[in-house]
């Protein structure tokens, strides 16, 4: 089985972001970047499937400027066999990403496509589902457990009320949720080996893809700050304030 894993370079999850002075973007200058946490979970799941002998090849793919090669090298250090860098700078809409990944899917014919359920910058949670629709294949989103059986994927999903299990034919798109696995750390020997693994460089026009251009960001602002609160000294004081000042309890 061949697995394609799409990954994204994003702001590190612990960074406190700031809005640019022009109020049209988040200020990314000198900010620590990392692989999107959900993408790490996707790479981990793919590598585990290869270690179990279920998959024979894991390919990492990412869309971005030349800096995203850092995340592709990281993916290969974690176990991806090779990677594909689709070069494109600037903001890329989810539908564009899905179209680019569809082109790669048609070239590579993976049996399983793994993605993080959302990236922690845009928080869109769209690409996996869009890709599945464009390829006319089934989807198992927000997966916390994945089993491969008889050419189908059994995906246990986290949903609002609890859990759901679907059985989907391959090829399929699966998007990862937090509890699917705990990703490993790249070991130094693997980081060194990853420098020699192949990174294929393509552009959207190589792939014959027209990028979507329907969304305009008119402004980016910080949310209104909350009024500063107070510390109370006792449970009695807390209850008194909630009752008489905030009036949120009877």
């Amino acid at each position, binding site marked *: 089985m061949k697995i394609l894993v799409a990954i994204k370079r994003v702001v590190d*999850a*612990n960074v*406190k*972001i700031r809005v640019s002075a022009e109020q049209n973007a*988040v200020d990314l200058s000198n900010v620590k970047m990392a692989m999107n946490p*959900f993408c790490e979970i996707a790479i981990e799941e793919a590598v585990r499937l290869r270690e179990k002998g279920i998959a024979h090849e894991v390919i990492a793919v990412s869309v971005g400027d030349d800096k995203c090669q850092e995340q592709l090298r990281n993916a290969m250090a974690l176990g991806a066999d090779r990677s594909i860098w689709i070069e494109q700078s600037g903001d890329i*809409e*989810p*539908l564009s990403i*899905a179209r680019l990944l569809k082109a790669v899917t048609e070239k590579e014919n993976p049996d399983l496509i793994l993605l993080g359920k959302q990236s*922690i*910058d*845009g*928080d*869109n*949670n*769209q*690409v996996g*589902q*869009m890709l599945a*629709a464009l390829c006319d294949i089934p*989807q198992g*989103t*927000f997966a*916390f457990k994945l089993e491969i059986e008889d050419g189908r994927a*059994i995906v246990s*999903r*986290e*949903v*609002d009320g*609890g*859990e759901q*299990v*679907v*059985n*989907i*034919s391959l090829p399929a798109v699966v998007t990862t*949720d*937090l*509890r699917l696995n705990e990703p490993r750390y790249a070991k130094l020997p693997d980081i060194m080996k990853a420098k020699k693994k192949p990174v294929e460089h393509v552009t959207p026009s190589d792939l014959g893809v027209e990028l*979507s*251009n*329907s*969304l*305009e*960001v*008119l402004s*980016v*602002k*910080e*949310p209104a700050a909350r009024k500063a*609160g107070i*510390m109370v000294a*006792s*449970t009695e004081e*807390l*209850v008194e304030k909630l009752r008489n000042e*905030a009036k*949120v*309890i009877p």
Partner: protein
Amino acid sequence: MKILVIADHNNETLNPVTGAVIQAATEMGNTVEVLVAGEGCEAVAGEAGKYAAVSRVLIADNPVYANQLPEAVAPLIADAAANYAGVVASAGTTGKNIMPRVAALLGVAQVSDILGVESVDTFVRPIYAGNALATVRCNDAIKVITVRTSAFEQAPCDGSEAEITTLDTVIEQDKSIFVSESLSSSERPELSAASIVISGGRGLGSADNFQLLEKIADKLGAAIGASRAAVDAGYVGNDLQVGQTGKIVAPDLYIAVGISGAIQHLAGMKDSKIIVAINSDPEAPIFQVADYGLTSDLFDTLPELESLL
């Protein structure tokens, strides 16, 4: 402008979050219709028709839609969407699962998790775990939108009953087969809709200790929530997780107990009207968003709190 709302439901009852989606739809266009896709869901269609703003309910009632599988429901919606300026669903897990598939089938963008409507084509949405708000204009002819329902008021219901139209489209597919689901049931209010939420974090220490919160929740008629740490540790199920990738809530009162206040948790609750934090660590980031903070041992405070209510 005609807007189509996709009902959030379980075949038996309409999820009240749909009222907030209808409200968002009225801010986009002056004609609002609702699509109910499911099996045995006539009662849901009736409930949807009671909203004052809803002039018509489309119902697609067939076993193929019974479990909201996106491979069946998305083509149905994409087909129906041709007559509307916008298609809108709640940003719960069902909407998140289905709507991007609809957008891709229509060849259009999706604007996810909006918390404000400026016009039929301009929306405000949170990015970077809600630490920034982006105002986005969508230039596609059909807007595909998911709504952060905690950010909208409930649209009013009146005595009216909207016209109900049957959709005969049946989308057969066998690529995705529903196997099972296990949903928690509780007497308590549902987390997304509750006006009071009491949430526990890693500080609670065990699943049993969540009973301390339950007693308070009972007295307040509150819902129970949890941080990711508490869910990961197995104290409670994932359906209680509040945060960037869990549930987003904005109740009148949010009480965070033993929760440190990581960015990802704040993303899920920082729009609550009143926030209370109870934590033994005075440096815990949660105190920066709390209206009332109490530095204490939760095992002392919780029983005291229960007795004072």
